[in-house]
């Protein structure tokens, strides 16, 4: 196909590089420097998509990121598919494959247009009023139908082959937008030596200058660009959209790195998310032209006047050969003049104003262009492309007076409803807006952060003004090129252009993508939606993927008109981040897979892996759960490990336990306040088990703390609780007791911790230790400095198995070698290495609790049968007052008990509920639940722990555990210790 609408010369495209691409399977060519939209328009193709609700044929109305209509599915066939991508910002590359969306079977023949025919039945928010009968149909018929019809493109179904990067940056000044104002700001600040970041979503610097014919500023643009590039402390980022403006001048920007190349080398990331902390921000984000709301304003070929100029100057593309211009202001006259100069024949300029005056109007008249003043377009015709427009005269009262003869033939309608300063980011940063009557638009008013607006973004619509405001915002002191701006006359807003066409067919769109018409806004207001936020939600105006960039002010104004209120009284809707949709992958960056949440591994992890351990996730740790021998399943391995520990001895990696080094002259006093038991007398060399409560009296964490010196303690916590406990201690020390001198350091990762446990533990360990570890030298609940396998460390006599146990701590780096030495030496006594599952069983056999398993944040020490650990004498400790509350002393609280199933082989499921009755009735009163349950080969039967209402008084009673299959298991209540009830073994 030939590029029928491409001019022979001009534009910022590279004609030496032809680029082939496909659209809906058809092959086209364009040039490097084109966008998908400009290349299709060069072929005379306007029809690029279908609207959301009515499936109306649509073409692009804009040339930038504000485009609501021309949404495309990109798909390279290898997992790179991107729905809803704006054709106006897709830079062309060879082999690009684009598909239109939301149509079936094809863009030209889409059966969805039936919705358009029935559109009278689908006014705004119709779905709230119907689909309620018959009731069951909502779920089975209506909703599936609505869902299938909704949505635009297709979500990817394959894993994303690309990767994404993050960059954190700081700067003195962040300039957003590289038009005249932004460039001047960046240059002024850059010359002064400050760290400057300049971002622009375009592929080149220049902003609005790129959309113009070679102008007087072309040379300046080139100079400034090269000067900025040469300044080390200035970072210039093109293809980078400032996406969000958060608090404290924290902003994010999305840089597109490979999207425009189509090349995937696997090395460069696809996109990079910049997270910028800026001293000051200059927003030079320009202005966005408004559409006019008139009947038939969505027909392909109808577009913003400025977009037509951009296609002409930047891409050398004529969007039509007989343009009709429809405007309420002077700026669109430029489009008429330029299109005329490019050789098209202007059908007419239709100007709402009755008596427009000024240089541009004179120039148009001078060119012989027909101008219909005091007139409006009241309708357009054409199926997939506009081919004529009807015009009528409009009076000062806003009513139509006479229709102008026959419709005018045209192949595009270039509209301009005035300009909105692009205040999205200013508003995201909480800046307040003010309505400017002259511009008939919102402009920045009061900033809430260190930010200034410059140029069109600030409502300054001249180039000279933009340059000087920009320079000033950047710190001033630079010479600016002289530019003369043509003085433009005032605009005359007519927010909803009346139409004389009758029936429901002529639609005047406000939000193009979501198919919201002026009439829909009327319905919303009529139904009492007086807040603009209600109108927005009721009609979905401004909720489409363009977030209302071209439509919001029109919607507001139309609603104000309906309510007979001033526009600012109706308010402005909130602009929410991001400015344009932002790829999930880019937000996440490298935080995927293994890096999603860092995996923590113990110093002995490698050994465990090499020895066949099966791991479980506990917090972000990987812990060895069991060590199966060939042919063993978990059950088999755990039973073997359990028996071996009690028969001879076992070794377990306990390095994940939280360890906090506590120092300071008040360390002891501090411990005394956070634990429930007494700590004032614990001597150096001794350890003690402690229970921590939250201030509400419920168990929070537990662990053994050793006294290293009078002012120095080594605390251990549960694995998962470690960060929480440290934060809690810091919180208490910094906010509650700042008078106490005490310091906390997490040393979890400094120490490798291994527990050797069992009747032969000492025999295995002693030869490796230089010091005496006999019971006399190192009794239960004592610790000592020791050299183990040549490594200096600490040995604690503490036990979580009920057997004689030594907890060896050595510096992490030596962990594996000491571990291997113990394993090697253990061979004499058939030492077995065991994991967390066996640890769980062994401690349950002894009735030791696991915080987080037996407790769930509603258990007191008394519930757990641990009255002994709560000091009655201490004047206070955290949780003491909480424990005083009546309900925490009630007799019918859930209490920890043991349960034995009548059938010794039956292992209850953890989480199963306990009932008093064996007759299931729904709802059924429940009196407790199983917290731990295992097959215990040491006991020769299954055992379970449970929290049961009033359980301490139920010893010997039969209770019931209903199963999910409807059966009921009988259980007997017992004490919580199942093995070595006298507790003799631990001291051995």
């Amino acid at each position, binding site marked *: 196909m030939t590029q029928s609408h491409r001019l022979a010369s001009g534009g910022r495209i590279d004609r030496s590089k032809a680029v082939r691409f496909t659209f809906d399977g058809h092959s086209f060519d364009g040039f490097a420097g084109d966008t998908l939209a400009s290349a299709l328009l060069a072929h005379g193709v306007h029809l690029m998509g279908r609207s959301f609700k009515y499936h109306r044929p649509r073409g692009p109305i804009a040339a930038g990121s504000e485009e609501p209509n021309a949404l495309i599915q990109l798909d390279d066939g290898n997992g790179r598919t991107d729905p809803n991508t704006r054709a106006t910002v897709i830079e062309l590359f060879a082999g690009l494959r684009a598909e239109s969306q939301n149509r079936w079977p094809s863009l030209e023949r889409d059966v969805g247009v039936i919705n358009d025919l029935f559109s009278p039945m689908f006014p705004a928010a*119709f779905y709230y009023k119907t689909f309620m009968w018959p009731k069951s149909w909502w779920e089975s018929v209506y909703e599936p139908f609505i869902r299938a019809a909704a949505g635009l493109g297709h979500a990817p179904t394959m894993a994303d082959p690309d990767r994404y990067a993050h960059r954190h940056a700081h700067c003195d000044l962040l300039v957003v937008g590289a038009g005249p104002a932004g460039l001047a700001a960046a240059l002024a600040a850059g010359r002064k030596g400050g760290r400057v970041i300049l971002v622009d979503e375009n592929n080149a610097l220049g902003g609005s200058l790129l959309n113009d014919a070679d102008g007087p500023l072309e040379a300046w643009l080139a100079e400034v660009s090269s000067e900025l590039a040469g300044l080390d402390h200035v970072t210039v980022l093109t293809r980078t959209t400032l996406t969000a403006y958060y608090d404290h001048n924290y902003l994010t920007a999305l840089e597109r790195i490979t999207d425009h190349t189509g090349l995937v080398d696997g090395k460069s990331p696809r996109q990079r998310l910049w997270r910028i902390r800026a001293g000051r921000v200059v927003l030079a984000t320009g202005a966005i032209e408004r559409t006019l709301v008139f009947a038939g304003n969505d027909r392909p070929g109808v577009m913003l006047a400025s977009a037509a100029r951009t296609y002409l100057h930047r891409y050398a593309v004529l969007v039509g050969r007989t343009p009709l211009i429809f405007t309420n202001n002077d700026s669109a006259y430029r489009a008429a003049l330029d299109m005329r100069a490019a050789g098209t024949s202007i059908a007419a300029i239709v100007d709402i104003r009755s008596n427009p005056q000024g240089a541009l109007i004179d120039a148009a008249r001078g060119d012989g262009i027909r101008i219909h003043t005091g007139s409006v377009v009241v309708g357009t015709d054409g199926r997939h492309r506009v081919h004529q427009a009807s015009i009528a005269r409009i009076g000062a009262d806003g009513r139509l007076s006479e229709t102008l003869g026959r419709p005018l033939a045209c192949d595009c309608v270039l509209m301009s409803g005035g300009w909105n300063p692009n205040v999205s980011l200013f508003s995201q940063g909480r800046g307040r807006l003010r309505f400017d009557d002259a511009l008939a638009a919102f402009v920045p008013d009061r900033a809430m952060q260190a930010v200034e607006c410059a140029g069109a973004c600030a409502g300054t619509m001249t180039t000279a003004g933009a340059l000087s405001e920009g320079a000033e915002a950047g710190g001033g002191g630079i010479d600016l090129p002289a530019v003369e701006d043509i003085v433009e006359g005032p605009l005359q807003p007519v927010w909803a252009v009346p139409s004389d066409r009758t029936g429901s067919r002529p639609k005047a769109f406000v939000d193009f993508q979501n198919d919201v018409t002026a009439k829909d806004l009327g319905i919303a207001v009529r139904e009492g939606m007086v807040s603009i936020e209600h109108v927005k939600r009721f009609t979905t105006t401004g909720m489409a*993927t363009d977030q209302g960039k071209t439509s919001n002010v029109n919607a507001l104004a139309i609603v104000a008109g309906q309510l007979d209120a001033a526009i600012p009284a109706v308010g402005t809707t909130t602009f929410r981040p991001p400015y344009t949709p932002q790829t999930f992958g880019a937000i996440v960056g490298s935080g995927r897979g293994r890096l999603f949440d860092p995996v923590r591994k113990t110093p002995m992890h490698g050994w465990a892996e090499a020895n066949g351990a099966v791991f479980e996730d506990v917090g972000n740790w990987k812990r060895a759960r069991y060590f199966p021998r060939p042919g063993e399943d978990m059950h088999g391995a755990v039973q073997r490990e359990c028996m071996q520990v009690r028969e001879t001895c076992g070794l377990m990696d306990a390095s994940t336990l939280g360890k906090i080094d506590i120092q300071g002259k008040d360390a002891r006093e501090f411990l005394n306040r956070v634990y429930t038991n007494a700590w004032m007398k614990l001597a150096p060399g001794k350890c003690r088990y402690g229970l921590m409560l939250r201030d509400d009296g419920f168990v929070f964490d537990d662990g053994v703390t050793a006294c290293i010196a009078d002012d120095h303690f080594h605390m251990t916590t549960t694995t998962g609780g470690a960060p929480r406990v440290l934060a809690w201690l810091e919180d208490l020390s910094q906010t509650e007791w700042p008078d106490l001198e005490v310091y906390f350091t997490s040393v979890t990762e400094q120490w490798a911790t291994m527990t050797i446990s069992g009747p032969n533990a000492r025999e295995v360990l002693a030869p490796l230790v230089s010091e005496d570890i006999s019971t006399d030298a190192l009794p239960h609940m004592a610790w000592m400095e020791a050299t183990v396998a040549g490594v200096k460390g600490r040995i604690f006599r503490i036990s979580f198995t009920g057997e004689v146990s030594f907890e060896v701590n050595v510096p992490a780096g030596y962990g594996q070698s000491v571990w291997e030495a113990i394993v090697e030496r253990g061979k004499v006594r058939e030492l077995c290495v065991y994991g967390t599952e066996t640890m769980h069983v062994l401690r349950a056999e002894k009735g030791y609790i*696991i915080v*987080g398993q037996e407790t769930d944040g509603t258990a007191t020490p008394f519930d757990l049968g641990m009255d002994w650990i709560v000091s009655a004498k201490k004047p206070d400790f955290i949780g003491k007052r909480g424990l005083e509350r009546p309900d925490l002393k009630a007799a019918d609280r859930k209490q920890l008990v043991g349960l034995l199933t009548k059938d010794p082989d039956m292992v209850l499921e953890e989480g199963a509920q306990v009932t008093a009755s064996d007759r299931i009735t729904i709802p059924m009163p429940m009196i407790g639940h199983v917290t731990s349950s295992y097959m215990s080969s040491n006991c020769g039967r299954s055992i379970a722990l449970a929290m049961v209402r009033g359980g301490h008084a139920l010893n010997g009673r039969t209770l019931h555990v209903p199963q999910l299959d409807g059966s009921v298991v009988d259980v007997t209540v017992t004490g919580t210790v199942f093995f070595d009830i006298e507790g003799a073994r631990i001291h051995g």
Partner: protein
Amino acid sequence: MQRYSIVSIARNALTGHRNWQRAWRSPEPKPSYDAVIIGGGGHGLGTAYYLAKEHGLTNIAVLEKGWLGGGNTGRNTTIIRSNYLYDESAALYDHAVKLWEGLSQELNYNTMYSPRGVMMLAHNVHDVQVFKRHIYANRLNGVDNEWLTPEQAKAYCPPLDIRRDARYPVMGAALQRRGGTARHDAVAWGYARGADALGVDIIQNCEVTGIRRDGDKVIGVETMRGYIQAPKVGVVAAGNTTVVMDMAGVRMPLESYPLQALVSEPVKPVFPCVVMSNTVHAYISQSDKGELVIGAGTDQFTSYSQRGGFHIIEHTLEAILELFPVFSRMRMLRQWGGIVDVTPDRSPILAKTPVRGLYVNCGWGTGGFKATPGSAHTFAHTIARDEPHPINAPFTLERFRTGRLIDEAAAAAVAH
């Protein structure tokens, strides 16, 4: 009230939709009412509706400082489920689910309750224990909840990644089939329209600035539009509850945190249900419009500003991509935050207060949308009769003094 139906739409189509009536009036506040409700969110509007409908109290007003549903009601991710652990919660939330099931018909307003199933993922041994405990308890309470293997979970939600070598592999899931979503705006608007039709004055842009007491009883409220006398005042102000209750001199056991959510651009149906994961911290569903609706966790710091930190969004999306790597190229269209009021036991307060005639409905935290009809229904009972409905009776303010907590957060516990 003008009835809505396909027929009424057709009839109005003939007149170009010019004859729709206002869904609710916009009355001037009267100097006195039998009761006023502070807060025009779903819970407040629903309370007014049931007060009028079931208790014949029609000389009442809802006072909203902004626009109806503009608080958390209009900001939430609309997940509905009732598979809570404790009997008290299960009863309350299940009462709500039962009302959800008939709400569109009750209000003659399509609230789009869509029971597409809520699936909660278990990622470690501890999660499995916790979910099993819920399932056992729910079954005996008559609340549906079932255990799925990873393969069954994948079959229920095809985009789910169940690779065993994932950072946090899916070890199974708890599925409540009656769980799902509803349309948040429709809930506020449907209740508003229903209440208005019964004579309730719904007054927007009317911030309450003070609560007047006479000794230990309430007598009225100061508002931006003047003083309004009322012997009964119901406070339903979500994230602002502490501020409003302060006006009556009542200190609340609440902390207010920003909670954020986001949506993607709309796409054709890809996501059939609701998936939640507490361990990796994310939840997701797809709206009828086609947007993926994604919820994040609360910020760590208390705040009244309806904005949260970007790192929370980042972490949430990390979690989403961990579970659904295919969504990596999807794009975030919009993000926002609301302020949620959190109690120490993460269960709501639906109760009388130490001030006579003053009632409070708050503490829904991150999850009160699902309860809207049930909360409103029982709260209306509490206000009308000056005593709680049996279902909300346990949700007192007193429980934080007595220790009789309903600790759903503890029930979900934490990894050991």
